């Protein structure tokens, strides 16, 4: 445990040093990135250890009411900690080079300070064993990520993204405060998780309220629809390695929070799981659909985070339903799927954001319709991005498939084992996952091909190239992880997952491991099929090479159907690619189109612009805030500037108090 504290200390000191060194960009980068790498590496040691041994704990008093510096890394915390610190480590490595690209325009001290404190915040959130410490760490995390979001604060939209983010985070925290306080009320006033664990007299109504509030509070951070509104704005605004961390792991702290709260609440009634499934289905399907409609590469990825959080929620939801109905197989598979997807999403989403960052750094634009043909200039980036895309679509044999496989499996079992009307949940997950699968394929085939394939749409992008060593290492490592996770799961992951599931579900460890063992044959099958695919592809490649060896292999322009002057702007754009699917869901997506059709016999100009804003923001929150603002505006006459009337306020107050006095004897 001391190592963990030392890791935090290294991070804090490193961040502070980076701030002190902000006069020299190189020094600041070295200090910030170096300390982050060292700190994360150190932190990983206890995290990994916690999975195999007893929980690591640390307790020391803290002169703050209700607070104590209690840390506990059990398997659940350890699991999340590994994901968090692992991705942060790579993010720091990548960021060291990436941020240095901004060195001419701004000082790098503050971003590195915030970055290191973001890691500290996330690590402490997960390791905290006290409610107040948890909240404080949570806020440190929010605040430091906020500072990173507004990194490029000259741009108005970046500021508005930061604003939305902080507001959403704060409203979420309000609910979390209520959650912890309600829990502490039943834990004899203490905020220590140790006391929370001993709660057993919780009424189902109170437990329900706590669960519901934690869905709102943690869901805001995690990005459940419709609390996701901050997410598509904030993630693109941050520097790419920070987007990777925010999207890959920071929002997962919300999932961690829900799981942690569940450990305090006793056996879940069915509606909890049902609620999570509903939330997951809505977030998953709509998230990917919104993603499809975006033209901004990082914004697209951000919406995919909503989708993947939805998938995680589905997994956890079906797992909870399994617990409620005493169907251990479903419980274990669902939870395992959800947890695995937490890790997998961190890997491939981190990879995709890092890849997008490399493109952004080279081309200075996130607008997909201005890109194209990047793959020729940045081959390595395009390969790793493709791997990430395949993984996020849940295509075999990469890691995304495995977690979705678990969830599918649990749901198919659910269709067989649930009582009549409950089947709907399992069915909903199956349909949603199927739909998400198709949409994700559409979305990432679009993202990859518009950006990396075809011809460059902008001639200025002729001299771009792959990023340097540090960024490459981070991306390649993550890409490799996409392949390796399944092997890891097969050979050492299952018993470790068992511990984590044990903490959440409170099922017996042996039973969990027994259930988990069932997953081994499919995984082996997956390997075999994958190797068959690999072998046959290699064979086909060699065969083709052999066939073409002696023959003429021509080079020509793409078949252009008789057009005389083909140019890059004639290529299919991201909006045209997505248009049929976007139109299909126009009632929810509400894409705005600005069209000027070609007119006359010799049309001169024509224009087509489409823009998909966030419907929850436009149709739910904005009107809500407007109504409140209008109501408040009606109070403006109170302060009209006339002193005489102000005096009457005093008398009126006095008289009303007298009425109160006479009324309440």
């Amino acid at each position, binding site marked *: 445990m001391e190592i963990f504290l030392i890791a935090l200390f290294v991070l804090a000191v490193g961040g502070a040093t980076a701030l002190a060194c902000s006069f020299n960009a190189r020094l600041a980068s070295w200090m910030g990135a170096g300390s982050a790498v060292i700190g994360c590496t150190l932190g990983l040691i206890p995290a990994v250890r916690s999975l195999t041994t007893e929980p690591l704990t640390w307790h020391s008093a803290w002169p703050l009411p209700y607070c104590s510096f209690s840390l506990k890394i059990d398997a659940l915390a350890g699991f999340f900690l590994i994901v968090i610190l692992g991705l942060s480590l790579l993010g720091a490595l990548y960021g060291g080079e990436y941020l240095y690209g901004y060195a001419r325009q701004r000082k790098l001290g503050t971003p590195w300070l915030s970055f290191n404190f973001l890691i500290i915040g996330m690590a402490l959130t997960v390791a905290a064993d006290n409610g107040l410490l948890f909240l404080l760490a949570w806020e440190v995390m929010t605040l430091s990520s906020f500072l990173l979001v507004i990194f490029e604060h000259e741009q108005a939209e970046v500021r508005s993204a930061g604003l939305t983010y902080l507001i959403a985070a704060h409203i979420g925290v309000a609910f979390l405060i209520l959650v912890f306080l309600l829990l502490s009320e039943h834990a004899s006033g203490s905020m220590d998780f140790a006391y929370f664990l001993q709660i057993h007299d919780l009424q189902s109504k109170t437990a329900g309220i706590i669960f519901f509030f934690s869905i709102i509070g943690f869901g805001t951070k995690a990005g459940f629809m419709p609390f996701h509104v901050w997410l598509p704005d904030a993630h693109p605004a941050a520097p790419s390695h920070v987007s990777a961390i925010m999207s890959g792991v920071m929002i997962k702290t919300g999932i961690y929070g829900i799981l942690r709260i569940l450990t305090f609440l006793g056996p879940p009634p069915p509606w909890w799981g049902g609620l999570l499934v509903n939330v997951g289905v809505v977030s998953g399907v709509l998230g990917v659909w919104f993603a499809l409609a975006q033209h901004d590469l990082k914004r697209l990825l951000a919406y995919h985070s909503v989708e993947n959080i939805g998938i995680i929620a589905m997994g956890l939801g079906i797992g909870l339903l399994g617990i409620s109905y005493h169907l251990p197989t479903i419980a274990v598979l669902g939870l395992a799927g959800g947890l695995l997807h937490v890790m997998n999403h961190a890997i491939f989403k981190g990879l995709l954001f890092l890849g997008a960052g490399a493109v952004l750094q080279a081309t200075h634009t996130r607008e997909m319709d201005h890109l*194209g043909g990047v793959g020729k200039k940045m081959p390595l980036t*395009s390969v790793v991005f*493709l791997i990430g895309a395949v993984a996020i679509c*849940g*295509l*075999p044999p990469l890691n995304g498939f495995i977690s979705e*496989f678990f969830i599918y*499996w649990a749901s*198919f*079992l659910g*269709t*067989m084992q649930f009582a009549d009307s409950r089947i709907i949940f399992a*069915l909903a997950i*199956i*349909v949603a*996952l*199927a*739909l998400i699968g*198709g*949409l994700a*394929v*559409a979305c990432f*085939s679009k993202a*990859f*091909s518009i950006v990396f*394939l*075809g*011809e460059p749409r902008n001639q200025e992008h002729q001299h771009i190239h792959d990023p340097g060593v540090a960024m490459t290492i981070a991306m390649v490592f993550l890409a490799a992880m996409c392949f390796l996770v399944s092997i890891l799961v097969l050979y050492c992951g299952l018993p470790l997952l068992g511990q984590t599931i044990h903490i959440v579900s409170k099922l017996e460890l042996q039973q969990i491991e027994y259930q988990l063992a*069932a997953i081994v*044959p*499919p995984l*082996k*099958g*997956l390997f*075999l*099929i994958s190797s*068959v*695919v690999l072998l*046959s*592809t290699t064979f*086909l490649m060699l065969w*083709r090479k052999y*066939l073409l060896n002696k*023959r003429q*292999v021509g*080079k*020509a*322009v*793409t*078949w*252009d*159907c008789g057009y005389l002057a083909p140019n890059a702007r*004639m*290529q*299919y754009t991201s909006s*045209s*690619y997505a*248009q*049929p*699917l976007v139109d299909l869901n126009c009632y929810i997506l509400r894409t705005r189109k600005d069209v000027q059709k070609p007119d006359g016999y010799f049309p001169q100009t024509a224009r087509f612009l489409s823009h998909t804003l966030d419907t929850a923001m436009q149709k739910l929150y904005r009107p809500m805030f407007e109504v409140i603002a209008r109501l408040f505006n009606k109070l403006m006459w109170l302060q009209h500037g006339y002193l005489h009337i102000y005096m009457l306020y005093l008398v009126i107050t006095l008289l009303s108090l007298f009425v109160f006095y006479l009324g309440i004897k």
Partner: protein
Amino acid sequence: MTWHWSSLSVVLAALLLSPLLLGIIPRVKAWFAGRQGQPLFQVYYDLAKLLGKGAVYSTTTTWVFRLGPLLSLSTIAASLLLLPMLEFPATLQFSGDFLLFVYLFAMARFFAILTAMDTGSSFEGMGASREAIFATLTEPALFLSLATLLKHNGTMSLSEVFLSAAPLTGTTMILIAFVLLIVLLAENCRVPVDDPTTHLELTMIHEVMVLDNSGPDLAFITYTASLKLWITSNILAQLLVAPFPEHGALLRPLLAFTTMVLLAMLVGVIESTIARLRLIYVPKLLVGASMLALLGFTIAR
């Protein structure tokens, strides 16, 4: 995980016979048009010819364009290992194999789309876009049909679905069969979803995606298409044949093969008698199929 080595013969049969199945459809269409039509083995000739040719690659394309057809073919071919044939369980059987099976299809499609997009042609982009949307809408229908079958048989493996003691019958079977037929038409880009023989690029889906492929690559793509037809019709055929009582180890598989031929003819009949749907109506057809599958799931016990 179980191996059934004897089923490799079924895989071999599929690899060999699938172009034949693809060749039946134009022949039926020719009959309907009053023409003699091409030979049944025309697809084999085509494949051989294409394999013997050189290739032309667009200067726009990258390694994705070279890799795509190979990867599509090998994934589809690999999915044959997971496909049972009634008394012949799949070569590789494990619980949840159907998921891998469906996702291998998705994988193949993903790379087919990327291949098309790599050319930078807007025709091919259009085709790819349509491929993506129809696949998206087909998947729920497919999964719901599978859920019905699996639930009915209480199994998590594709191989056991059609071997169970009480196979799906009656209304539910008809519904599911109908849904699977639509899935078949959509997956193989057939009328009424797509018209492979049209001469206008703007209306095509699959054919327009491969405009720039030539030589061996085009051969691989054609062969992949034939394998897809084989596999989808195979599943539908098994569903239809499964209720027939078992007489010997080979009878039902042979019956199923006959059914597949009949299905190919049916596709030909459909293509000859029905017009291609307008593109905006296709989603309705596919969503409708999902609804039917849901109905089937609901009434199945």
